[in-house]
């Protein structure tokens, strides 16, 4: 055993040695240790440097509130994890941990210079300093701030661990496995309620499990022994599920809670492999019992942050739970009775301990116990300074004045190697407030306690402000019984004895002889904010607690102010002379403790990140070297490079082939909605801008759909399959939204219409063949069909069969070429495609992707909704007046087309742009100006589509330009980073204005 491992306990198995490293140095601990307890057992207190002043810092607590001991775990590039609390890491063989925020080493840290110049970097330093001169920002300030910002190092490689999500339901969820949680869970489970008890530590019992003091007796047993029995009884209950190593992250409305379970973090390296690391539980509970306990408060005095200054109850836990003495020469500095339990524990283990108490006396049994043991107590005194750079060596104490506002008498220097501090307790009301609960301020012991209003959750134990053992047991029992409608319980008559605290005193900021400006009385240890900073913020006019918090960064570190928020509030209240309860608190937001990104995303990584939709022809595209593009969730062939072609070369070849002979496109991803019902025509009349009643059966028509605000929403060709039967196509990305919109109108505005909508996007595959030779290819595929322009004109459809399989042929065109689209049941999509390729071989049929499709339609001036439009374009802006029916009384968006704003003549309107240099290709999104010399230059539009057209042998572009309709022939400019490009406004139809090719 090491010097500081002074006793055996039932919680640490001292037969199982575990080796680990900290900052590269090898140490030993035992199974059951945390990294913190193992370091302390080796006498290591110094574990990190503070964020701003780089002051040496030591382990301060034993739980999730730890502000100082935050470590980097592992050093590999994929598994390394920053900002992990040493107090929460269960020791395992092979653990490699290191300190953060120091360079070159923890022991010698250059950043420590900040401590010497600290009077020049007060609160708000960054806001005040990095304002000027302007030119300094990019080259000097930003790199400087970036270098000193952040704690720890992020992994640079993807996380190889597996994370999981799981849903869970229960009648009663108990949060917290301390004594009140155990009592609650037992009552619930014994009364046939499906109960879950979650606890963030690896074992149940909270702080009572190591409470072996004779002043705390339940049912004639020491409280820890009584609780041990209760736990073993719990484990026998069938309808109770106990989840240890599980911390509650969030408590949302309707009792929906998120909890993170650590599954393999504590396992030795060689046993972690392949197992799930963490699981996020999504729990819906009928009733929630919050039993999250309380956190001990520090005391705020000059130099209260040295390594070796530890919360008093943590000292007791390290001693009685882990068997580790945090010091051999201890002083306890307190304002309350609970710290005396630590003193008695230390004394009984034969460890030297003295007590400094700010109160004049205390007459409780635990204090009497300490006095009887002969522990020296300095009443009505305060610590005014501490000494020791990397570890505390001594303290100075002074007497308090009568009212406690000042110090009197002489300084008394006392040697020590550990200073245990206790400023009372703060109920952990985070869960209560997260769920929407409100708080009340209790003056007598200066705590915020929950106001119980919800029917679906209650708070029990010390998170409810019950601090004394008797209160905890009795109140928890009564409250839970009432909450769950239970009449009797075995605890009803149980006897509880405990020490009772009668004398209370609290001083948020302890007085000193040194002027305040020269003290370093830390409030937020992790963010290095001091009492001085808070007072400065108040002097500078900040009043709201939320503002003071942000200005001083108090409570904004990874511990989210678990230790600091109350002191900040207290000092603000005192300084501003207001009652503390009236200030309110800062908002407690989830998660309670930091969550890993892994736990949040669960399995939704890599190929499970999003749904990937593939057409039935996808395999063929892969075999033929397609490069893919994401369109919504779809994978669409983008282009099909041959040999080493780049995008441009492939697209030029594909585009030329489609116009010169034949091209083929997989158009299966376009949205398809089957519309049936006796009012189908009327319905289309209302949702499209053009008229539909007179469309003949077997005919196709292009339709434009607006939003009620008059802006273009979607477009596509709809085919009349029968009297009351249509097939609508939508854009690939818009399919789901269009269906939702149509359903909305049908269900809410026009329920009287007899119309049925079915999404059939996935049911049909579509091969689109275009080009002057397309008709010949179709003839080969369907030898019995008459493809003459009379029998099968443009914008019509016919049923057909290929190898006995029914299909639909639409003669429609998005390229301006003679073009056919064949729709077939998806399972035959690939064989249809292969037949088309085979039939087209003699015409060198060329598969083309979305890029070529975009180019070909741009040559014809066809818009793409979402590329040439952005939700602010009306059909009039797009110069598509021809498709807006003047005769129809109403359609979606009609009224908006003549609002004062939509009839403005200077709206952005669709135009074509030709570059003066025909080889210059504009950048899509580039801004357009009419005058170059004007300052500030006015942007009058932007380029929406731009390509080099191989068929026209020049660059073409579509753009939206203010008042563009009237600008034809005008010169405009596109200012780029290194040059200005001259363009001329043109017609946006660049090729075949007479539509001759469609019947070629």
């Amino acid at each position, binding site marked *: 055993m090491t010097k500081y491992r002074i006793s055996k306990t039932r919680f640490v198995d001292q037969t199982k040695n575990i080796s680990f490293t900290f900052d590269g140095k090898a140490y030993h601990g035992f199974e059951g240790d945390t990294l913190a307890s193992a370091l302390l057992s080796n006498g290591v207190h110094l574990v990190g440097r503070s964020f701003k002043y780089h002051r040496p810092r030591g382990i301060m607590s034993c739980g999730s509130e730890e502000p100082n001991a935050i470590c980097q775990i592992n050093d590999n590039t994929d598994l390394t994890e920053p900002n992990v609390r040493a107090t929460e890491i269960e020791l395992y063989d092979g653990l490699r941990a290191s300190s953060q925020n120091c360079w070159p080493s923890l022991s010698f840290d250059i950043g420590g210079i900040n401590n010497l110049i600290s009077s020049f970097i007060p609160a708000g330093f960054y806001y005040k300093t990095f304002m000027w001169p302007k030119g300094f920002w990019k080259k000097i300030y930003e790199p400087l701030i970036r270098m000193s910002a952040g704690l720890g190092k992020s992994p640079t490689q993807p996380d190889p661990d597996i994370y999981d999500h799981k849903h869970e339901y229960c009648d009663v969820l108990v949060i917290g496995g301390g004594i009140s949680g155990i009592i609650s869970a037992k009552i619930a489970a014994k009364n046939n309620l499906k109960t879950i008890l979650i606890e963030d530590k690896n074992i149940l019992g909270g702080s009572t499990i190591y409470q072996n003091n004779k002043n705390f007796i339940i049912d004639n047993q020491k409280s820890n022994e009584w609780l041990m029995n209760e736990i073993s009884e719990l484990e026998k209950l069938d309808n109770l599920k106990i989840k240890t190593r599980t911390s509650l992250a969030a408590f*949302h*409305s*309707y009792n*929906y809670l998120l909890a993170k379970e650590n599954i393999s973090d504590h396992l030795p390296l060689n046993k972690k492999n392949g197992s799930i690391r963490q699981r996020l539980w999504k729990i*819906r509970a009928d009733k929630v019992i919050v039993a999250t306990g309380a956190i001990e408060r520090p005391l705020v005095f000059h130099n209260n942050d040295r390594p070796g200054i530890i919360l008093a109850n943590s000292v007791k836990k390290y001693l009685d739970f882990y068997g580790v003495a945090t010091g051999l020469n201890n002083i306890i500095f307190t304002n309350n009775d609970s710290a005396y339990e630590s003193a008695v524990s230390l004394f009984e283990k034969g460890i030297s301990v003295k007590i400094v108490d700010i109160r004049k006396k205390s007459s409780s049994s635990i204090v009497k116990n300490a006095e009887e043991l002969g522990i020296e107590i300095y009443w009505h005194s305060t610590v005014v300074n501490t000494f020791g750079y990397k570890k505390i060596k001594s303290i100075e104490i002074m007497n308090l004045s009568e009212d406690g506002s000042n110090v009197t008498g002489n300084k008394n220097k006392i040697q020590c190697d550990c200073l245990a501090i206790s400023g009372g307790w703060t109920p952990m009301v985070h869960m209560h407030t997260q769920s*929407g609960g409100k708080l009340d301020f209790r003056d007598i012991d200066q705590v915020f306690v929950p106001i119980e209003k919800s029917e679906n959750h209650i708070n029990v134990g010390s998170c409810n402000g019950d601090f004394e053992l008797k209160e905890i047991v009795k109140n928890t029992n009564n409250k839970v019984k009432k909450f769950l409608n239970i009449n009797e319980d075995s605890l009803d008559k149980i006897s509880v004895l405990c020490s009772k605290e009668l004398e209370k005193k609290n001083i948020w900021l302890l007085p000193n002889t040194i002027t305040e400006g020269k003290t370093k009385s830390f409030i937020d240890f992790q963010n290095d904010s001091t009492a001085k900073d808070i007072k400065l913020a108040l002097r500078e006019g900040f009043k709201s607690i939320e503002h003071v918090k942000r200005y001083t960064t108090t409570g904004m570190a990874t511990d989210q102010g678990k230790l600091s928020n109350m002191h900040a509030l207290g000092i603000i209240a005192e300084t501003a002379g207001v009652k503390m309860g009236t200030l309110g608190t800062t908002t407690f937001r989830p998660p309670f403790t930091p969550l890993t990104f892994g736990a949040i995303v669960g399995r939704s990584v890599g190929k499970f990140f999003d749904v990937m939709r593939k057409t039935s022809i996808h395999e063929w595209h892969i075999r033929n070297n397609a490069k893919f593009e994401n369109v919504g969730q779809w994978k669409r062939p983008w282009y099909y490079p041959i040999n080493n072609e780049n995008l441009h070369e492939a697209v030029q070849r594909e585009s030329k082939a489609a116009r010169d002979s034949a091209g083929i496109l997989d158009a299966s991803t376009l949205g398809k909605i089957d519309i049936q019902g006796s009012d189908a025509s009327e319905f289309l009349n209302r949702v499209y801008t053009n008229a539909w009643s007179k469309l003949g059966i077997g005919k196709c028509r292009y339709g434009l759909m607006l939003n*009620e*605000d008059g802006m273009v929403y979607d477009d596509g060709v709809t085919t009349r399959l029968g009297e009351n039967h249509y097939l609508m196509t939508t854009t690939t990305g818009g399919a789901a939204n269009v269906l*939702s919109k149509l*359903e*909305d109108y049908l*269900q*809410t*505005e026009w*329920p009287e219409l007899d119309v049925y909508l079915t999404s059939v996007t996935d049911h049909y595959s579509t091969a689109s063949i275009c080009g002057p030779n397309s008709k010949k290819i179709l003839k080969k595929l369907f030898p019995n069909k008459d493809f003459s322009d009379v029998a099968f004109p443009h914008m019509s459809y016919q049923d057909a069969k290929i190898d006995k399989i029914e299909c639909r042929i639409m003669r429609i065109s998005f390229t301006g070429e003679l073009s056919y689209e064949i729709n077939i049941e998806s399972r035959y999509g690939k064989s249809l495609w292969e037949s088309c390729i085979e039939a087209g071989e003699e015409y060198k049929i060329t598969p083309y992707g979305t890029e070529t499709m975009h180019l070909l339609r741009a040559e014809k001036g066809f818009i793409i909704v979402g590329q040439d439009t952005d939700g602010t374009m009306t059909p009039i802006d797009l110069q598509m007046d021809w498709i807006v029916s003047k005769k129809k*009384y*109403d359609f979606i968006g*009609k*009224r*908006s087309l003549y*609002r*004062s704003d939509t009839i403005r003549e200077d709206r952005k309107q669709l135009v074509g742009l030709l570059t003066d240099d025909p080889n210059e290709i504009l950048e899509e999104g580039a801004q357009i100006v009419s005058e170059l010399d004007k300052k500030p230059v006015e942007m009058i539009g932007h380029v929406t589509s731009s390509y080099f057209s191989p068929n026209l042998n020049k660059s073409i572009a579509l753009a939206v330009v203010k008042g563009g309709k009237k600008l034809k022939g005008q010169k405009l400019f596109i200012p780029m980073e290194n040059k200005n490009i001259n363009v001329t406004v043109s017609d946006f139809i660049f090729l075949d204005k007479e539509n001759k090719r469609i019947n070629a």
Partner: protein
Amino acid sequence: MFVINCPYCGERDQSEFSCGGEAHIVRPKQPTELSDDEWAEYLFMRKNIKGVQFERWNHAHGCRKWFNMVRDTSNDKIHAVYKMGEKPPVI
């Protein structure tokens, strides 16, 4: 995350639903008769109440039916759920 009692399917998790904003805004039968201001009133103006609000909801990942819901936006308490076309309850 609420639990919503879909009038067609029963209680389901909120993640199955999408909210369609304020309820009982009827599309004018004769939009052409309206002034710009009257049309804008229908098109843009929504109350966004802190307190009891009547809302449209859609069981998007379920039966895909639209229905109305009365919800207190300050505490997410759901007071009533009723089908489209039914009279709103008095809350």
